[in-house]
């Protein structure tokens, strides 16, 4: 028996994505439930929503060093509530989990932090915006942000500058996740320019690139028959961007959703069936690290391939997350997240 064993039960709502845990979509247990036609208010909604079961601040970035080497970077803060309340002290029912990673073509470095809410070790406040767990910080006014993380074998310190508006997925930020109507609130800032320094075992590396920050919260994100998901954030060289996800179901079918984003921030949402994602190649662990992704209505038919096939997050809730290259009808880079393959 050890602590790690209980973490799975701790972060059950998040595990739901990875483990295909059935039973979450059934009851919200006193938690608020996302409703259609959301009215967001900022900066308040950049902060935490403790009356919802789960929430995350999820940043991924495609980076390039001066010598042209591609890198991937992840900074994520998860919130998981045991009860729809907040408070001071050890009994505050909010738990926090941070994941950070740097992916190089050869290596994948992972760090993880866990914290109780209510004691100041981790939290997110909206004004001025600051999200933190231990020494990991994401702070600023969303026009510019500073972001740091550290682990035994890597650290980074990055500056981000927004170069476009916030993007709202689904129906104005109400993102449906199943045919049965499970949904989350979901918006992104996909237009960050990012620069900074990666501290890696081989030395410091200056990098630049673009970053994508996702905000999502809900209390019942998956249907009972959904076992995992594949999520794509693609930035094409022509300036367009695309977010798409595919939820795997026990009956062999999938539920897909996508958002097309033009260079000036105009969005087109696509409901189930418009996006088609087909696994092409698997790595040694049977995780599909190559995909054919099609969105016929925008003429998209691309091959998505991992820059490093072994971008497995060896965290207490394990999953695959890493940078990808895009070739085919469109070219570019992006990030791929896959859960449910353990």
């Amino acid at each position, binding site marked *: *028996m*050890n*602590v*790690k*064993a*209980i*973490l799975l*039960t*701790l972060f059950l709502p998040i595990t739901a994505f990875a483990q295909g845990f059935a039973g979450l979509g059934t009851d919200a247990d006193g938690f608020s439930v996302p409703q259609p036609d959301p009215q967001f208010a900022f900066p308040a909604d950049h902060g935490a929503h403790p009356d919802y079961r789960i929430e995350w601040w999820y940043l991924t970035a495609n980076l390039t060093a001066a010598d042209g080497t591609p890198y991937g970077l992840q900074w994520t803060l998860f919130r998981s509530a*045991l*009860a729809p309340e907040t408070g001071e*002290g*050890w*009994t505050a*029912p909010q*738990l926090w989990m941070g994941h950070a990673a740097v992916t190089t073509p050869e290596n994948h470095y992972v*760090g993880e932090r*866990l*914290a*109780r809410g209510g*004691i*100041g*070790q981790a939290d997110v406040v909206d004004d001025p915006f600051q999200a*933190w767990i*231990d*020494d990991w910080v994401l702070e600023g006014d969303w026009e510019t942000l500073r972001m740091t993380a*550290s*682990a*035994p*074998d*890597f*650290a980074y310190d990055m500056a981000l500058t927004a170069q476009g508006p916030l993007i709202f997925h689904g129906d104005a930020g109400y993102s449906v996740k199943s045919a049965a109507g499970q949904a989350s609130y979901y918006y992104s800032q996909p237009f960050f320019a990012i620069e900074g320094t990666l*501290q890696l075992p081989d030395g410091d590396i200056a990098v630049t690139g673009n970053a994508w920050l996702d905000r999502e919260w809900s209390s019942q994100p998956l249907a009972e028959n959904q076992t995992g998901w594949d999520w794509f954030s693609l930035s094409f060289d022509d300036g367009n961007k695309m977010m798409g996800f595919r939820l795997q179901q026990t009956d062999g079918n999938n539920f897909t959703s996508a958002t097309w984003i033009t260079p000036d921030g105009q969005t087109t949402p696509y409901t189930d069936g418009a996006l088609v994602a087909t696994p092409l190649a698997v790595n040694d662990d049977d995780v599909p690290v190559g995909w054919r992704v099609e969105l016929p209505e925008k003429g998209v038919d691309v091959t998505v391939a991992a820059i490093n096939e072994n971008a497995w997050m060896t965290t207490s809730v394990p999953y695959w997350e890493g940078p990808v290259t895009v070739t085919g009808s469109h070219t570019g880079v992006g990030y791929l997240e896959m859960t449910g393959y353990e």
Partner: protein
Amino acid sequence: MTRATLQALLSHWWRNPLQLFTLLAGLALATALWSGVQAVNAEARASYDAAAATLGEGQYDRLVRQDGQPMAQDTYITLRRAGWLVSPVVQGRLEGVRLVGVEPLTAPGGIGPVMPTEGGDIATFLLGEGQLFANAETAVELPDLNVVITPEAAPGTAVTDIGVAQRLLEKTGQIDSLIVLPNQPIGRAELRVIAPDLTLQPAQGGSDIGRLTDSFHLNLTAFGLLSFAVGIFIVNGAIGLAFEQRRPVVRTLRALGLPLRQVIILMGAELMIFALIAGVIGVALGYVIAALLLPDVAATLRGLYGADVSGTLQLRPAWWLSGLAIALGGTAIAASGALYQISQMPLLAAAQPRALAMAAGRRAAIHGVFATILLGIAAVMMFTANGLIGGFILLASLLIGAALALPLFLDRLLAGASVIAKSVTAQWFWADTRQQLPGLSLALMALLLAMSANVGVSTMVSSFRLTFTDFLDQRLASELYVRTENETQSAALVAFAAPRTDAILPIQSADTQVAGQPTEVYGTRDHGTYRDNWVFLQQADNAWDTTFGGQTVLINEQLSRRAGLNVGDEISLQGTPFAIAGVYGDYGNPIGQAVIGEGIFATLHPAITPQNFGLRMDPDSVPDFLAELEAATGIPPSQSVNQASIKAISLSIFERTFTVTTALNVLTLAVAGFAILMSLLTLASMRIPQLAPAWAVGMTRSQIGKLELLRAVLLALLTAVVALPLGLALSWVLLAVVNVAAFGWQLPMYLFPMDYVRLGLFALLAAALAALWPARRLARTPPADLLKVFSNER
């Protein structure tokens, strides 16, 4: 063929059931003592391991405040936010149970063996009233709390969430220590910048408790090994005799065409089956011994070292397997010589009537060489041995060397006696005793080992008791000790007690490190209680004057030995240098201690105010004083300890230790007595040819029987004479080598002549009892049997 051969071989045991019994009983007893002691040790170690796992003791570095006080919870957050991967721990006593609060999200994996996995609900553990995890014994002490029973919990310990522990221990916002996780992120800030009042305690190789109690377990293991050695002597004797007697059978079988190889294999298989049977019986007996001893051992360990050991025994595969293995191994060792002899025996060699004695004579020479070598090693190691392993090697060489030398020594002694003897009867008696010596030598060696172990261990334990009780008298000089809850109570106590007592002696201490050793620093008031009672092992001039004056420090022997510090050396406390003015004996304390004056202590540790007080007063006025104290200040008698009751508690702990020692003493003596009985019984039937001539020339059978008894007592007496110096040497090794290695202090050795006399009488009694039945049998040998000796020409 195999079946017929086996039948022929086994028929020997049908005809000699006593030999079979000796073999099985000797082996079973040896295994029982060995596995019983191992069971006690295994149980105790499992308890320490559980305790260590609860807190990750020894595995992880820790951060604590330099002054030993709890740190603020904010310090924890500051460290985490500076990139330090640390996990908070709070602990304290609740209803006599050690309550440990951990933080499951940040604790390293494996800490707190009692986390909820199945059926556990994390929300219940973290929120609301919380959940405690403890074993069944401990759970009983906490009836009002939500306790989940888990057998994996360390004895006497309950583990819970840190928030729950802070609430139950009334330590809200306080943290006692921070576990430092092994893999820290790069680029974190330096400790002295972010938390200058914290200090890093490096992880230690083993748990503290484990090291402290090693000596105790070593003593037990030594006992177990000695008992086993005694048992193996018995088995060796029984096997040697049986094989000697079966030579004609072997010769016949081989003459009938049975290959030698098959004979050896069958005889070996036969013995291994016996060994398995005896091993199973022995392990079962060992379980009984362990179950009887364990509560006392647990109480001793708890009292002496504060180590909580479960008082109930669990069946652990490790020790019953080791019990069986040692039974098989022991038999193999005991039988290998005999089997070798069979293999070397010429096909048609006659069964030699005095073969046993002659073989023993040849062995004696080899034993002599070994004895000389081993005693030589022991002599060298007496001056060079240090550490537990060295001490153990010294013990083993000394004991085995002495045991091997015993028959030679006795033989020389008896030869001398027969030269001096005048009368024919006396001359015959000495010569016959010498003749019998080889057959009895194994049993006598067993007796020697048992007696010297008893002398040695009793001397050690009694020396310990005497030293410790003297020490208690010195150190617990105050008639009454009062603990206060807070500064207000302290002030009230001082105000109340000042006019009613001869002196008020505040007792205040801080945990710190001196030369890398965990050390308690005491700030002590200048009073005759200390000057008159404390005994120094080393001291400078005016040690007390300079210490109370704030210039010097006194340290205990443990700190002196471990850190290599002596009078005149300098140590640093809170950055202030102090010269060491004295080293004092501090028995029974596991860690280092340093004493400085009250004034300088207040300067170095301004945050600490005394909450324990020793009060000097007329012992008779203590009860009245306590009653008035409660009425006047509200301090209940439960916060006071009467000096007399502290001593009573301490002494009762020692009584438990003695119970264990005495039980083992009795058992080893019993085994040795059994060895003598069995040797005499097996010899008796062989001795008729030697006794018949004595009877024929006019000695009555009753005279012969009496001489037989006298002989056994005489041999036991001679053995006892050798055992006494050997036992004293053994106790010296235990006190001056093993004890120093395990505890860090040397005990003065005291002698207890009356104990030795009593022990000697017991040994003689055991020998006499053992000889009684064989002697009676001889005395009642039918004259016809004696006559047959002359008719059967051999």
